[in-house]
Structures are given as C-alpha cells and as structure tokens.
C-alpha cells in the first residue's frame, strides 16, 4: 500500500466518522468520497464514454484545486482531421540557450523538484557525432561556444515507438495525429517504456511534482500537461493542449533563433514539408528503426 492511498483511507475513515456524528454533512466530504470511488473505477481513456470522460475531467480539476490551489481547465481536444504533426530542427541555428527547456517545464507543469525536463540539449565537440563525448550539463557564461555544437533531444514521436510496444498495460499509445501519449491514470509506473526508449525521452515522477500554484499553466489536456500524480511516466506531447488548437508548441515560441519548425506533414504547403523536400535531413538514431517524426536539418542561410 503506497503512502498516499494509506493517508487517503485514513481520511476516509475520519470522513465517515464525521458524517455519522455531524447532523449536516459538508458537501466537500461527499464529493471526496465519490471522487475516490470514481478514481478507483476509472476506465482507460480510449474506453471511456463521453459522459464518463466529462466527469473525469471535472474530477481532475477539483483534485488540482485541492492539491495545488490552482483553477485549471482540463480539456480533451480530439485529434484534428487530416493532420499529422512533425517537427524539424535546424542544427546550424541552435545555439544551446535552453530557452526551449525552461518554456517546456513551465508550459507542461513539470515538477520543479525533480529533473523532469522533457528536452535535453546535448553539447558536442564541433565536428563530432560521438554521443559519448556529449554533455548536457554544460554551463558556460555565454552560448554559443566556438568549439561546440548543440543537439536538442526530446520525444521523437516515432512512427514505430518501442515504448508503446513495451508497455504491459497499454497505458501509452500513438494518436491518429502522430503524437505518442500516456494515460497517466492507467500507467502503473513500471518504467519499461523508459528502458526501451533510445532517446531518453521518458521521465518518471519519483515524487509528487511540486508546482507553484501561480506558475501553473491553467489550460491543460487530459493526455498532456495536467499535473501528473506521483509514480507515473511523462513525456513530450508536442504540447498537445496547444498544437491541437492550431497553436505552436511552447519550445517553438521560446526559441530565440527560430531553429524549430512545426507543422502538418500532410499539408504540402507547410514549412515543414518545404524543409523535408529541399534540405538535407537527418533522423536521430535512425538505425534503431523507430521512424522518428522529428527531423534535424542543416541550413546556414
């Protein structure tokens, strides 16, 4: 029995005692009881009926209000039709300023108490592709350093994702728009996906994420940036709460050099298709056969 469940059961007992003794029970206690039952009996995201889903989203909003004191809106925007997301990154433009990393942590409500950055910027010696020489703890006074180049790595949203194959409970899957997502309430925290990912793109919540309530991003998505419980995996979702509304992911907005390009791979007019058809493209660890839809390219113009 994990400590959270134990404390919860203790609270349950106290609550039952309180309801039996106090003549007029407070409505909060009733909702807490039903919330707990709902959480226990909650179905997989893909199997929930629309009514169940609506109740679940409302319950998540209540829980976040209780635990973090922030009023969030937990949405459930379905995939857009005729859309398949992809990202390209210009390696000649990236200067390793880590603006994307900080913007990602803030947008996606990552715990500030753990190293849960979904983007990892590797710094490599100029002219070298040797990943064993890379360093993601670099902290010079100014970037770019003359003798280094930078390789930001995050979830590559693979078309053949080993993390999805290795999940024993189907808590993670690939959405029709190409984003690999996790049902945080279905995840059992076994971390098999983290072991199978060649990009080190999945992160485990070893403890309850600490998020200051004033820094909480209030526009959230069930599969995206809602605050995660302790003991589940999390990953980059191309900012599903933003990209499915037509907005740019947070890393793109934050990048000061414009190195990242995001768009719909099915639209032949999009910038990303332009890049893929005219620039030299590199897929990271292509030999693993994961078919990433994250493309690195070189363009010094």
């Amino acid at each position, binding site marked *: 029995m994990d400590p959270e469940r134990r404390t919860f059961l203790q609270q349950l007992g106290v609550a039952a005692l309180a309801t039996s003794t106090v003549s007029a029970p407070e409505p909060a206690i009733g909702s807490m009881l039903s919330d707990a039952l709902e959480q226990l009996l909650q179905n997989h995201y893909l199997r929930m009926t629309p009514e169940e889903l609506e109740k679940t989203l409302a319950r998540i909003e209540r829980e976040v209000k209780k635990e973090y004191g922030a009023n969030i809106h937990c949405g459930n925007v379905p995939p857009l039709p005729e859309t398949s997301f992809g990202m390209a990154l*210009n390696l000649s433009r990236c*200067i*390793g*300023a*880590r*603006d994307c*990393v*900080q913007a990602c942590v803030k947008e996606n409500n990552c*715990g*500030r*108490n*753990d*190293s849960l*950055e979904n983007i*990892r910027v590797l710094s490599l010696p100029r002219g070298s592709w040797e990943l064993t020489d890379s360093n*993601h*703890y*670099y*902290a*010079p*006074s*100014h*970037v*770019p350093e003359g003798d280094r180049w930078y390789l930001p790595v995050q979830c590559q949203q693979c078309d053949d994702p080993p993390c999805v194959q290795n999940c024993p409970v189907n808590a993670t899957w690939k959405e029709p728009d190409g984003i690999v997502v996790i049902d945080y309430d279905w995840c059992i925290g076994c971390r098999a996906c983290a072991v199978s990912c060649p990009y080190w793109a999945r992160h485990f919540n*070893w*403890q309850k994420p*600490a998020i*200051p309530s004033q820094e909480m991003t209030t526009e959230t998505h069930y599969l995206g940036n809602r605050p995660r419980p302790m003991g589940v995996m999390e990953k980059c979702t191309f900012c599903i709460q933003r*990209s499915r509304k*037509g*907005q*740019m992911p947070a890393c*793109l*907005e934050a*990048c*000061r*050099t*414009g190195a990242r*390009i*995001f*768009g*719909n791979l099915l639209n032949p*007019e*999009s*910038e990303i298709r*332009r*890049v893929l058809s*005219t*620039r030299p493209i590199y897929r990271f660890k292509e030999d693993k056969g994961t078919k990433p839809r994250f493309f690195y390219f070189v*363009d010094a*113009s």
Partner: protein
Amino acid sequence: MVFCSSRRGGDRKWFCFFLSLALLAWPGMLLSGAMPYTVQGPVVKTNCSNCHAWRTPVLKQRPLGPPHAGLLLRHGKATLWCLECHNPQHPSLLRTLSGADVPMTEAQDSCAICHGRTFFSWQEGVHGKRLTHWSGERVIQSCASCHAAHAPAVTPLVPQPPPRRGRARTTP
C-alpha cells in the same frame, strides 16, 4: 535568333511571344512555392525624419559624431555607408541600389539586395520564425526582430541553467 528559325513568320512571332512570357514568369514560378505571409515585429527603431525632416543630411562618408554617436554602423564590415540603404531625400524611406524606393514596412526587400539566399529562405519559412500559430494565417517575424539593421550580428546569450545532477530534492 536560333529559337525563331521557323519558316512561317506568324509561328515565329507567337513562339517568341510565348518564350518571352515564360522567361518573364520564371522568377514568379520559382517563388510560387512560398506560402503567403504577414510580417510582424519592429521594422524601424529610430525615426530619422525626427531631425532630417528639417535638417539636410550631410551625405559625405565620415566617422559619425554626435548626434549620431549612439548609431554604431556595424554592418557590412565597414564597407557600407548610410546611403547604401537610405534615401537621402526622404529619410523615412529606404532605397535599392538601382534607386527604387522601399518603405520601412517592406524593409526586407532592402535586405534582400545583399542577403538574397537568406531572404528566400526566410520567405519559405526556414530562416526566421513563425509566430503563435502553425495553422491559419502565416505571421512571421521581420528581419529587425532579431537583427538590428545597423548592427545585425546576433550577440551571444547567457544560457538557462543546466538540469540538476543526482538525486531529486523534496522541495523545489
């Protein structure tokens, strides 16, 4: 002309007409791949006509003193002078090398004279940055959003802190 060596004069005339039409349309065909866009961002930081509306500019190339002391011209490795880009008669206008006027809102056309490859790359969305939305209207940043026109080199930045090493802490 080699192309027009047809026996019938009428055919030759039409052939030359369509050939010239195709040649005229060629640059347009090259650019047709770029999506339409709207430019957003700072275009001009100092308004020259604040003073030069009533003060005739001295056109001679010289080291700039006051009131231009703050205006460092670090563009083109000291080969350029104000009038390469600015129109001396209308200080709020830019000009091309052939003398055509370019309004400040279209300043990218002036940049494109020298930085043609970068300009085309910017037009098709590879150089530069698209703002807020990946779908719908394409709003892209102007050149001056990142490159100050008089000192366009991008300065080095202070990076954000690195990820924490070792075990997680219990408090942020």
